[in-house]
């Protein structure tokens, strides 16, 4: 029993070291693979039937582990669609057959159909913004020209409290050639077609108790290039804006609604305006909407928002990258292409957006490197080599002993 079991033990030891060498070989081969998680071979004893007086050797069993939850080193790249996860979670990828898998290999490139695919052929999945709840392939393809109509604006001004009161017959709302005003601003709004519409906003002091008359005209109706009044059509809107005459603070009248011809109703927020004893001036003037523009580039934020940047500088949040996680990432089933599938031991998938629910954040223009450290692998290789040698010595010794036994009959 003893010698034969020693032979078997030596063989199992050699097989275990060979398996370890296999994982080391894989690790070294994948030391530069994006998103690769180091594999390791763990040993466990297998005992034989040993009595109190004799020892029957058993053997060694191996168990291959993947350090899936280990964070790889993040290195920067030049492509904005190269994504790395800093923290927990996996990208959800879909292969050509429609099967979904988890991966941390984020070297995505834009395909001709607009989807983002990594080197292993997995298409990045996410949610369509602003309110999508179905997991679908992120498509950042060019959708041609995009225009958006203006709907909200902010205009913060200071209107000189010392300005002269304009008689009601000369207010801009009267639209006569004698119309005058206290302060005027122009805002560029966009209609449904993306045509810029210049709005002439007139603010006119109508009495001494802090009331201003606000009239908004479409500049295209101006009388001539040198004089706007009288406009060919009446004001788009005329309303009053009230200030507290003693403090100069805004009191009522905002927001001002302007119906843009062939466009949305523009709401102009003027509530940050003041009426102080200083020269009339503009503090803020912003407006949304944009002229038709084509897609220029895409960016990905740390929360996984995929933004489409248009040629006129307008940024539109199009998708959000989804991250998935399981209870026990290290027990995921490894498949080719740095991808993982769930099994009964790993637990089921939980989906969340980056930065929330314990998920890590996304780093754009970055890739997660392999977790393999060459020095460790080389050291392990030495120990595997020596272990294999030692096992073969055991085998050789047992073989020699058996040979001696066989030769007893001959002599």
């Amino acid at each position, binding site marked *: 029993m003893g010698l034969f079991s020693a032979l078997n033990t030596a063989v199992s030891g050699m097989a275990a070291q060979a398996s370890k060498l296999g994982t080391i070989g894989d690790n070294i081969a994948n*030391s530069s693979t994006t998103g690769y998680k180091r594999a390791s071979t763990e040993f466990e004893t297998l005992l034989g039937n040993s009595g109190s007086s004799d020892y029957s050797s058993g053997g060694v069993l191996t168990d291959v582990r993947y350090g899936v939850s280990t*964070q790889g*080193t*993040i*290195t*920067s790249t030049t492509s*904005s669609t190269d994504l790395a996860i*800093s923290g927990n979670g996996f990208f959800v990828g879909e292969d050509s057959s429609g099967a979904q898998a988890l991966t941390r290999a984020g070297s995505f490139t834009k395909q001709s159909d607009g989807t983002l695919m990594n080197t292993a052929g997995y298409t990045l999945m996410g949610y369509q913004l602003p309110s999508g709840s179905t997991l679908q392939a992120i498509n950042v393809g060019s959708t041609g020209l995009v225009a958006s109509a203006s709907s909200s604006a902010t205009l913060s*001004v200071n209107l000189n409290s010392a300005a002269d009161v304009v008689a009601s017959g000369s207010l801009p709302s009267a639209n006569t050639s004698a119309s*005058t005003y*206290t*302060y*005027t*601003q*122009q*805002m*560029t709004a966009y209609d449904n077609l993306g045509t*810029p519409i*210049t709005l*002439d906003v007139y603010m006119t002091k109508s009495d001494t108790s802090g009331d201003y008359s606000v009239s908004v005209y479409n*500049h295209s109706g*101006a*009388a*001539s*290039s*040198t*004089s*706007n009044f009288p406009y060919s059509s009446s004001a788009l809107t005329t309303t009053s804006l009230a200030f507290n005459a003693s403090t100069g603070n805004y009191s009522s009248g905002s927001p001002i609604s302007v119906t843009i011809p062939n466009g949305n109703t523009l709401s102009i927020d003027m509530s940050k305006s003041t009426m102080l004893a200083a*020269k*009339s*001036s*503009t*503090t*803020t*003037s*912003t*407006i949304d909407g944009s002229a038709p523009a084509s897609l*220029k*580039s895409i*960016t990905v934020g740390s929360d996984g928002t995929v*933004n489409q*940047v248009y*040629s*006129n*500088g*307008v*940024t539109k949040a199009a998708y959000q990258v989804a991250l998935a996680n399981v209870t026990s990432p290290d027990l995921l089933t490894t498949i080719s292409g740095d991808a993982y599938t769930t099994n009964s031991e790993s637990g089921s998938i939980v989906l969340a957006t980056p930065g929330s629910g314990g998920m890590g954040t996304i*780093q754009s223009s*970055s890739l997660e*490197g392999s977790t*393999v*450290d*060459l*020095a*460790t692998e*080389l*050291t392990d*290789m*030495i120990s595997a*080599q020596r272990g294999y040698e030692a096992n073969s010595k055991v085998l050789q010794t047992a073989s020699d002993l058996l040979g001696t036994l066989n030769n007893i009959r001959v002599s």
Partner: protein
Amino acid sequence: MGLSTTLSIAQAALQANANQTTVVSKNIAGVNDAGYSRRIASLTTQADGIPTVTVSRSSNTELFNQLLSSTSDAQSADALSSGLDALEQTVNLTSSASNSESSTDKTSVGTSPAALLASLTAALTSYAAAPDNTALGQAFLSDAKALASKLNAASTTVQTVRKQADTDIANAVTDANALLSQFTAVNTAIVTGTATGADISDQQDKRDSILTALSKDMGIVTTTNVDGSMSIYTDSGVTLFDRKPNTITFSPTTTFADGTTGNAVVVAGIPITGSSSVMPLASGSIAGLTGLRDTTTVAYQNQLNQIASGLVTVFADSDQTGGSAATIPGLFTYSGSPAMPSTGQTGLAAAITVNANADPSKGGSLARMRDGNVGDPTNAAYNANTTGAAAFSTRLMALGTALNTAQTFDATSGAAASGTLAAYAGSSVSWLEASRSTATATSTSASALVNQATTSLSNSTGVNLDDQLSQMLDLEHSYSASAELMSTVKSMFGSLISAMQ
């Protein structure tokens, strides 16, 4: 962590170092570029100690805005000052005289209307003492002609200055429109760059240089929006650029004469200059030139007209018989004769002439000055010398007295409101000189402010060569250190691999 990580950190460090060196070299290249702002390469360490470089641009909004406003102020002061320098040739002060204004009696210098008027007064006195002396009469007449043509020439000069100012406004408007359209492209590039996280510092430099150039034409204020775009307003608040440029329109006037009103500069229907403007431009060359064209020159022209109307009034011929013949322009006349001009009548200085009836070279007679019937020799009612005496001096004496009698002038003209004609002409010269010296002083101090603002901005955002070179030295050291690290890792791997053999 392990040797592989060490290697990749060292590699990233080398890359970051190279990027920083690029920034330093860019800074050194821009050391003599006034519009260049220093780039700052800042290192940020990501997880695992991997360094990355982000490039920012040093800026100082307050100092830059101060530079813009002082540039505009300097330009408007400079425009006014150059215009007044041009007007000054109407009084022909020598440069030495203008340098010592306080000590020199300006009214007696050069060929100003005041000096010629003084000369005329002296000639009249001499002629009145000997009315039968033709040579003295001729001298008096030529002084009168010199004064009239001086007023004509001065008036022409004033209108030339106005025309030049008008042309300069047109050029400034063209320039401003070109700058605004350039701004569109830069603004879009900055907005797009901000959205994509690209390096926009070159665009920001360009934007600043456009704004600086624009501030020369007109005073501007800017606001920056959250997306990085910028809106430009005039210093009075009229929108020049809000997502798209507004067109500035101005039609130059072809001919300027006394009384011509130049056109206003209009931004999308909102006048920013001229009397109808609710929100008038306060600074920049357009504001300065408009002030010159519409205020200073008009005031000076008015003063010349006052002198002219004073002359016509003093030398007017009136009914000597106590009859009802109307008072008519005498020695000094104009195109509207025989009606008397109103005080400071528009266009009078340009039109004033010496009556041909008194000029022997034009078929007239010197004796008519003596007799007082220059305006209408055929009407005996105007003849004071009924006896035809050759030595008749009453009329000339009366003229001399009238010339030295106080008159009332337009109080709004800038010069004295009342006084003798000579005193008024003198105060006109003083007014011009005072305006000119004030404008020059303002222009000089505004230029000094621009220099100071430029220096402060350059100190704050410019490139300091010493600083850059010492940074370069640091970078060189850290580059060698990173390279050393790599070679150490290499030799460590070497020992590991040799251990296997």
